[in-house]
């Protein structure tokens, strides 16, 4: 059937179904093939906290959202334009996020008596007219597949397994995407199992053909490719980016990589990846707890390895004492905290930016540490390397903050040209002449670092205060004051070695939206839009949380009003006020999910309407 074609600059698609329905799989594939096609992409998987929630329940819904565009895309999409709903519950929980006129593709097999009851529907929404304002296409996918696969001699329940692939076929048609690369993908995936491969290959084609022939699908949505820098691309999650960043940093510093860690959602995958990278020489210990995790990393660091420990909120709290040791012993160490919704166990599968306070201030004694915060999935890679650079150059533990949203979301990432990355070789002291463990580099204030195995450099360090420039334990008060100040200054001075903060939009003016970490995408989407509409609003985004970029104070002073959106209760706001004495406006969201761009847009519009402070 001939289709109309509608060209769009972005589109949000959500596959939703039961946990067992394979939604993550087709979502991922759509994002890959959109990346290949030349779109920019951002995605977010959304699965239940329970390992296997009972089938058909509201809390058992699993979904995968893909936002594609012909312009840069920085969020998973505020609202859904096209939704696949494989059962009643998946429709119900996602309904409130649809755009007006959204297309809903529903499999009627998921809307039988039982499913409706589990979802709490009194009437079948596919039939009672309640979805009238959307474009609803109900399909009996079972029937379609049964026809298409009839000669394969499959069990009925095996036929149903391909429902997800069928819907991918439908979506490909609606987006006018060729199936070739998806066929290849199926081959890579199921090549070993001929029958399964055949079933899924046919299911894909079947969905595609269904959409081709069905008069209900009268329009194709064309999201044209965009110009992208040349290179190899892939989709990457924040967790994988951290793992790959650390392996890269190991190459660049010429230090073998060691991971000491303990599993915790949503950070565990970094452990999964690194534990599998033996090919790249990674050593690891899944420790007995988070304290063992960080302490083994400290030991490896003392031995001259590039050491990293990874965790999330509760584990971060447990590592605090050992972090203080790394501060006073002045040891290079990277601590990755994938923030999740707290306090305590909180909502472990949800995301939040609420560990900034503790990263900044959460250690007994004066124990300053550099802190970085990744602003996107791909940025996790860059900042893992940057954290390693700072840690090894300045002889200090460094905290890298990401969060559940970045950790699990994906975006296309252009592989770096490894050979062009800076040489970060860590040089250890080998010459006994003038060696003292607490003697410092004049510029970086880093102490001298000699590792075991180096003849004649035997020495002793620890958690007791040390004589400045020397090696002896010291309980002298004046020396302690000097040491506290040096440790502070060492961290503060890093400000001279990091990029200045950049302002998008006008450099001076009324409103600056200041963000940090994972709010980047939503702020960028919102303010780009506002600026394109001629609104006067500028943006700056922090990735360096301690020390701040040198020009932050100046930038703050260049604006009448500063708005800080955070998915916490206003932690950066307090820190900025404390440090710069600049009153800030807060926009706080604590719902376990990232900002929608429109939430930020609305807040800025409200401020614009109110006029100057």
């Amino acid at each position, binding site marked *: 059937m001939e289709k109309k074609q509608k060209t769009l600059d972005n589109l949000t698609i959500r596959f939703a179904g039961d946990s067992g329905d394979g939604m993550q799989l087709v979502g991922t594939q759509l994002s*890959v093939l959109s990346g*290949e096609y030349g779109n920019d992409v951002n995605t977010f998987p959304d699965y239940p906290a329970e390992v296997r929630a009972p089938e058909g329940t509201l809390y058992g819904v699993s979904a995968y959202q893909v936002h594609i565009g012909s312009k840069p895309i920085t969020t998973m999409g505020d609202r859904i334009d096209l939704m696949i709903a494989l059962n009643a519950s998946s429709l119900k929980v996602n309904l409130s996020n649809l755009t007006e006129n959204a297309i809903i593709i529903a499999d009627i097999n998921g809307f039988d008596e039982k499913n409706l009851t589990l979802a709490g529907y009194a009437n079948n929404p596919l039939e009672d007219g309640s979805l009238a304002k959307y474009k609803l296409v109900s399909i009996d996918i079972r029937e379609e597949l049964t026809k298409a696969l009839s000669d394969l001699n499959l069990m009925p329940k095996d036929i149903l397994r391909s429902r997800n692939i069928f819907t991918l076929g439908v979506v490909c048609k609606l987006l006018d995407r060729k199936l070739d690369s998806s066929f290849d*993908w199926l081959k*890579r995936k199921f090549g070993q199992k001929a029958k399964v491969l055949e079933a899924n290959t046919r299911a894909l084609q079947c969905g595609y053909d269904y959409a081709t022939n069905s008069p209900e699908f009268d329009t194709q949505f064309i999201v044209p490719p965009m110009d992208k820098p*040349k290179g*190899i*691309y*892939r989709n990457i999650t924040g967790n*994988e980016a951290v793992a790959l960043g650390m*392996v*890269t940093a*190991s190459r660049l510093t*010429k*230090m*073998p990589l*060691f991971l*000491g860690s303990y599993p915790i959602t949503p950070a565990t995958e970094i452990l999964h990846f690194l534990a599998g*990278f*033996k*090919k*790249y*020489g990674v*050593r690891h*210990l899944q420790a*007995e707890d988070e*304290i*063992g995790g960080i*302490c*083994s990393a*400290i*030991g*490896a660091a*003392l*031995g*001259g*390895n590039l*050491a990293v420990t990874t965790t999330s909120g509760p584990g971060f709290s447990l590592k605090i004492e050992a972090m203080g*040791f790394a501060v006073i*012993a002045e040891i290079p160490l990277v601590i990755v905290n994938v923030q999740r919704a707290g306090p305590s166990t909180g909502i472990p599968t949800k995301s939040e930016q609420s560990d900034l306070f503790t990263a900044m201030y959460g250690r007994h004694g004066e124990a300053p540490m550099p802190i970085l915060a990744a602003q996107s999935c791909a940025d996790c890679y860059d900042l893992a390397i940057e954290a390693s650079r700072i840690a090894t150059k300045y002889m200090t533990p460094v905290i890298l903050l990401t969060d559940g949203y970045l950790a699990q979301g994906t975006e296309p990432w252009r*592989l770096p040209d*490894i050979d062009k990355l800076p040489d970060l*070789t*860590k040089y*250890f002291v*080998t010459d006994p002449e003038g060696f003292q463990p607490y003697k410092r580099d004049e510029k970086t204030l880093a102490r001298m670092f000699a*590792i*075991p*195995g*180096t*003849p*004649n*450099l*035997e*020495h*002793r*360090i*620890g*958690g*007791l205060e040390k004589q400045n420039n020397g090696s002896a*334990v010291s309980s002298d008060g004046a020396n302690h004051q000097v040491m506290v100040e040096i440790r502070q200054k060492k961290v503060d001075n890093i400000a001279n070695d990091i990029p200045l903060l950049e302002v998008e939009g006008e450099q001076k003016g009324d409103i600056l939206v200041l963000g940090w970490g994972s709010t980047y995408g939503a702020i960028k989407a919102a303010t780009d839009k506002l600026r394109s509409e001629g609104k006067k609003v500028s943006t700056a985004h922090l990735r360096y949380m301690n020390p701040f970029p040198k020009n932050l104070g100046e930038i703050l002073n260049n604006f009448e009003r500063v708005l800080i959106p955070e998915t916490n209760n206003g932690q950066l706001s307090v820190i900025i006020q404390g440090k710069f004495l600049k009153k800030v406006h807060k926009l706080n969201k604590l719902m376990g999910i990232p900002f929608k761009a429109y939430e930020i847009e609305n807040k800025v519009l409200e401020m614009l309407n109110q006029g100057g402070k």
Partner: protein
Amino acid sequence: MKTYQDILNLTPTSAENLTAKDFRSAAEVRWCPGCGNYSIIAQLQKTLAEMNIPKEKIAIVSGIGCSSRFPYYMNNFAYHTIHGRAIPIASGLRLARPDLSVWVVTGDGDCLSIGGNHFIHACRRNMNLNILLFNNEIYSLTKGQQSPTSRVGLKTKSSPLGALDDPFEPTTLATGAGATFVARGTATDPKSLQHLMMEAHKHKGASFLEIYTNCLIFNDNALKDFSDKEIRKETTVWLEHGKPIVFGKDNDKGIMMDGARPKVVPLNTGKYSLNDVLVHNKRDSYMAFLLSNMSYDTTLPRPMGVILDLDNIETYLERTEAQLAKHYDHDADLMTLLAGSESWEVK
């Protein structure tokens, strides 16, 4: 990948003419005069000199406590770290640097109280460390509180009306946690201690050596019954692999099995002979449980020496190295790793 360490290409110093003195640092020793720890450090310095390992290849890690001040008095790479955390720090160091000999110095509080979890896991994993537990049955550095090895009823600053807890028997705990080398000595028996330190060193996996030491300030004579040169002849039994388990001033008593239990039999009455006596087998974990459990039993002598020494259990480090040997490709292309399984090119 070549690392900076590979490039360092440090020529190890000679280990040949090392003496105990080479292992002494310039720092003034600040233990109380008469503290049991003096003997232990002297024995370790002697043993290290014997070991034939370059000085810079030896690393010592301690926690916090009187005993944990040890590193400052040694002339090695040495780290005085966090209360209870010497073992995980040492584990990381050991895994990162398979070329080192790593020693942990820890106290009954440091190792068995706050550090208990790390301790049992190091035993379980057969982590390649030599762990020296300085057991004085008290928290000394904090001036005299009960420790997990203090006896029930002991009056200390924190148990003014008597301790309420039953203590650990460290060798039993270690054995139960899966340790592969378990031994016990006392600071008052220097020669034996040197021997045990050397045995601990020779054992490839986790070596646990409990050492009785006296805190004359806060728990004087707590372990005298098993440390005093004369008394200990009757109250302890020195274990030797492959030899019958006999003790007493004139070796006139032996240990015999009575079902699943050990009992003491006299060897000078004619009723029992050496043939009835249990023969020590340090390669047998059943034997180790039996022996270490005797420590609880006031009717039986307390075993000293090497209780267990299993030489056929792979260590965590060996397994890591084996995996690396199999999978590590020094020339592996990083770009392949970065690209993952699904990538595309924009031209």
